[in-house]
């Protein structure tokens, strides 16, 4: 490599030595500045910024040590190598040179070859330092740039993510502000029926790659939840979407919940997340919500398993979900925090509202420092009346509202297995402006009528199974099994909208191919009974008008009225 000419400052009080050294250095192709003492040297450095200094130690006015200190201070982060010119031999004096910031020595008498080699070596060091500084600044710039990008991406994402109901009074959560870039994702939204869907997800990887999947996932979650789709349909769509857009080695572990305040139950799907826990406050028992599925985005749509589990809940019971950041926390010896330690924190917990803080503290004690990639969420079951879902926002003007029509559907076995017609039916009905104010009740009633027709009618499931918690689980296992095997049967839905006194009336009739039930006995029960079984009928009677059953329970009929709109 051709040596780039340098500007070299020679500080030497002996005129002959200065002259000699200048000649040697010039002959080696460098520019020379000279100074006869330390003060002159500092001044010359200040004005002309030479790249390297040859400095005599003993000089009048200001000695070389002080001059070296001042020059190093002026140079700041830039490496300006200082080679002390000295015939010093005592190690103490040499040490002083180093302390003052000297980088090397050159003994008198001068040897041209050695001097050239030292200048070359120092120049290499100087350039290395310059490169390191340049790269450091570059990295710092890139880092700033990246942080800014993340800030913007996060701001955009927050608009999407927080369009949900994470601020609902029954949700507590803890997430790092940059959880998105750890791949963590927390979403919550009300369904039209007033149920709550919650998703805690964890994408593989870190940084932007971990964040890119979050946006489409959130869109599917919010879009489908708002339209009244259940967990299964939403899961299938999320899985298919992620499978389509993510590379093979990327996926999203996720737990999806549907909390039903009216039915007092929680439906759970866990793909690849650590166990969540359903905390029964009365008994203190914690039921693990274990991963039964592969993460989202791994399986193709044909093999994806959308089966969920349903658990009963009482008011005040809580569902706790957490990301793998908790149990995968390592201590200095690469030991995992693990599930047992988490359960010890559970066991020691006295104040349920302090649980997050206690887990964080335990992680910090275990690891020696806090973690910023832990996500936790806790959702409690409230009385349905304590939660008021936000009103739905409609974008149309209402000028084209349909007011006098009827429609009939028949959903047969192959369709019942995989298709949920409720979102479609609800959207159709909400074209009628007068019905929008009661969309929650409408959806709940429609959903109950449909699931009664399907589960008790077509599938012949016994609702009394749901009397206790274990029966509850068995009930939903049977439901899945019978649906899988279903060959025949139908559910018919008849909708009729008619204008009435400036307002209107909706009549819904749902019929099924099942065996029917003892209408008189069911109708004789008190309407407000809080039981796990038979809540459907009671709910329908509370939320709609003129509910009646005919054809030995195979045909249900309800009405909804609305007044003239202002």
């Amino acid at each position, binding site marked *: 490599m051709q040596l780039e000419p340098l500007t070299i400052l020679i500080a030497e*009080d*002996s*005129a*002959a*030595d200065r*002259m*000699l050294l200048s*000649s*040697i250095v010039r*002959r080696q192709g460098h520019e020379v500045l000279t100074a006869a003492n330390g003060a002159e040297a500092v001044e010359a450095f200040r004005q002309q910024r030479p790249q390297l200094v040859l400095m*005599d130690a*003993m000089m009048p006015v200001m000695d070389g040590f002080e001059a070296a200190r001042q020059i190093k201070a002026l140079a700041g982060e830039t490496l300006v190598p200082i080679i002390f*010119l*000295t*015939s*010093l031999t005592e190690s103490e004096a040499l040490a002083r040179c180093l302390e003052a910031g000297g980088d090397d020595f050159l003994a*008198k*008498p*001068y040897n*041209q070859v050695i001097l050239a080699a030292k200048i070359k070596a120092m120049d290499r060091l100087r350039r290395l330092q310059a490169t390191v500084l340049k790269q450091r600044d570059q990295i710092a710039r890139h880092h700033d740039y990246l942080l800014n990008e993340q800030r913007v991406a996060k701001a955009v994402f927050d608009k999407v993510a927080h369009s949900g109901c994470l601020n609902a009074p029954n949700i507590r959560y803890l997430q790092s502000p940059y959880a998105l870039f750890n791949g963590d994702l927390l979403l919550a939204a009300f369904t039209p029926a007033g149920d709550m869907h919650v998703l805690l997800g964890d994408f593989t990887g870190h940084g932007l790659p971990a964040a890119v999947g979050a946006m489409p996932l959130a869109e599917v979650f919010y879009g489908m939840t708002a339209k009244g789709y259940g967990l299964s349909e939403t899961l299938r769509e999320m899985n298919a979407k992620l499978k389509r857009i993510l590379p093979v080695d990327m996926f999203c572990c996720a737990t999806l919940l549907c909390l039903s305040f009216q039915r007092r139950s929680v439906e759970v799907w866990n793909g690849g997340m650590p166990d969540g826990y359903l905390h029964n406050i009365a008994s203190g028992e914690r039921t693990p919500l274990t991963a039964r599925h592969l993460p989202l985005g791994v399986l193709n749509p044909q093999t994806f398993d959308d089966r969920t589990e349903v658990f009963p809940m009482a008011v005040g019971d809580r569902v706790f979900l957490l990301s793998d950041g908790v149990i995968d926390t390592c201590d200095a010896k690469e030991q995992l925090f693990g599930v047992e330690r988490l359960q010890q924190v559970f066991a020691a917990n006295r104040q349920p509202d302090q649980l997050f803080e206690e887990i964080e503290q335990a992680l910090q004690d275990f690891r020696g420092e806090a973690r910023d990639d832990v996500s936790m969420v806790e959702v409690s079951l409230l009385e349905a009346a304590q939660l008021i879902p936000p009103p739905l926002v409609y974008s149309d003007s209402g000028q084209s509202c349909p007011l006098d029509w009827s429609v009939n559907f028949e959903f047969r076995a192959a369709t019942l297995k995989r298709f949920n017609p409720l979102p479609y039916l609800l959207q159709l009905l909400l074209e009628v402006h007068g019905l929008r104010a009661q969309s929650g009740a409408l959806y709940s009633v429609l959903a109950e009528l449909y699931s009664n027709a399907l589960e008790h009618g077509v599938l012949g499931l016994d609702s009394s199974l749901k009397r206790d918690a274990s029966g509850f689980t068995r009930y939903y296992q049977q439901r899945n099994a019978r649906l899988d095997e279903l060959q025949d049967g139908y559910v018919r839905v008849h909708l009729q909208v008619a204008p009435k006194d400036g307002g209107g009336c909706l009549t819904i009739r749902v019929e099924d191919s099942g065996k029917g039930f003892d209408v008189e006995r069911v109708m004789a029960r008190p309407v407000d009974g809080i039981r796990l079984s038979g809540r459907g009928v009671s709910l329908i009677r509370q939320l709609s008008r003129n509910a009646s059953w005919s054809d030995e329970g195979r045909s249900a009929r309800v009405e909804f009225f609305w007044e003239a709109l202002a």
Partner: protein
Amino acid sequence: MADTHLDRDVLSALQEVMEDEYPMLLGTFLADSEERLSKLHSAGDAETLGATAHSFKGSCSNMGAVRLAKLCHDLEQCAMQKNFLEGIEKLVGEIDGEFAIIRPLYEAERQRSLADSAAVRRF
């Protein structure tokens, strides 16, 4: 005889490095040396004496004044130990003597090189 005072190899190396400025270097050295000699005489304390001797030693070694460099080195050592006042006086005297010997040698060398370069210029 000259070999104990001057290192001729150093001088020829200096001439090669300095080229036309060689005579000027020799003149500068002599002028510089006189200054340092008078400093040695006027030094009021051991520290100043040692520092002056140290610097002088450096120039001498660069200029091939081997014996003068050695005497300066001894003086520096003496000054550092501070208790050989007699030794110091003796060494300063020897340095004076040595400079008196080498001064004409450097003068001669300067004249020779001036004549050489003048001769070169005539061709």
